[in-house]
């Protein structure tokens, strides 16, 4: 077998060492840094793209959040306006009710006063009639002239007794 021809060992080993060292240096200094560079720049690029996508996503989320906040604000404002108007309307209604109630009360009072006045007048008239009647009755029955003051006093007492 030519593989065991010892005199061929030295030149093979020598050329192997030369070519292996050459290949090692070429790989370590030239080829491998180059491939590594390509791979690294690609992974950097992918990482960059992912970062950018993440940023865009965050931006979109911010915009959505802003929009929702604006929407919520508008809704709250509308609700507040509505509530205010409702309160105003309620207050106006209340006031009108109060005014009407006051006016009715005033009219009722006036009516009561008029009634009281009419009653007093009627009572006063009644007193006069009763007194004259009593005086005339006394004159006619017992033929006694009772003085008006006495008769009026008696009528008053009788009316007070009757309530």
């Amino acid at each position: 077998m030519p593989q065991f021809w010892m005199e061929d060992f030295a030149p093979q080993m020598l050329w192997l060492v030369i070519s292996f060292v050459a290949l090692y240096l070429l790989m370590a200094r030239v080829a491998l840094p180059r491939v590594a560079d390509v791979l690294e720049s690609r992974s950097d690029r992918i990482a960059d793209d992912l970062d950018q996508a993440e940023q865009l996503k965050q931006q979109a989320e911010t915009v959505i959040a802003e929009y929702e906040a604006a929407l919520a604000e508008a809704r709250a404002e509308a609700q507040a306006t509505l509530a205010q108007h409702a309160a105003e309307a309620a207050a106006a209604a209340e006031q009108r009710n109060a005014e009407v109630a006051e006016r009715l009360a005033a009219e009722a009072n006036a009516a009561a006063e008029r009634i009281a006045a009419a009653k007093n007048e009627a009572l006063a008239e009644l007193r006069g009639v009763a007194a004259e009647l009593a005086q005339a009755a006394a004159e006619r029955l017992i033929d006694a002239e009772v003085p008006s003051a006495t008769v009026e006093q008696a009528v008053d007492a009788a009316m007070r007794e009757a309530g």
Partner: protein
Amino acid sequence: MTTERHIDHDSPMHQFVIGRLSDWQIGGLDISFSKAAAFMIAAVIVVTLFLTLTTSRRAMVPGRWQSVAELWYEFIANMIKETIGTEGRKYFPFVFTIFSFIVICNLVGMLPYSYTVTSHIAVTITLALAVFILVTVIGLTRHGLHFLSFFVPKGVPAVMLLLVVPIEVLSYFMRPISHSVRLFANMTAGHTMLKVFGGFVVQMGIFGVLPFALIVALTGLEIAIAVLQAYVFTILTCLYLNDAIHLEH
């Protein structure tokens, strides 16, 4: 010596003659250039040109050839990461050179009329010894004399150590032998077999179709073996490096 060296041109072994192309001597050292040396240099050129030309465009989206270069790189990078871990990064160029040199020499050897550098024990033992010496130096510089504990497995009774330690030492020193013979024997056997069946094709005339079909199948197998043996040599290199770096036994 020259009479012993004659080998018949038709012999299946003739393909393994290193084919001297010059007869150079320096101080008694034979540095003759040969077919073997030419194919080693060819492998260096092929690997270097392939890796530099395919990555010259530095494309973000790699083309077919750039993908091969990247896969090649990442294959070895992952192998080191898985067997050695992060401390293995330092040895990446060395392991990459080992794999690339062997795999290209093996594959170039599959071309008709070419020569297979790795079919010579002189070549594989040199590579294996380089790994062995590197591993031993790394072990001694990283761990000092503590590296010797590698030969003393944990949890073995003291009496048994008398037997186990010499076996461990012997197996350690047998590593370059098994490491180199595995590659050399696979390459030699495969190429010899192809040549033998090739001879049958000629001898059997019309029935030579049968060994020819076999050769087609065997050629496919040999290409697989060429890659597989380069992988085996490289992964063993990684495992030996891991032993020296981590001293786990």
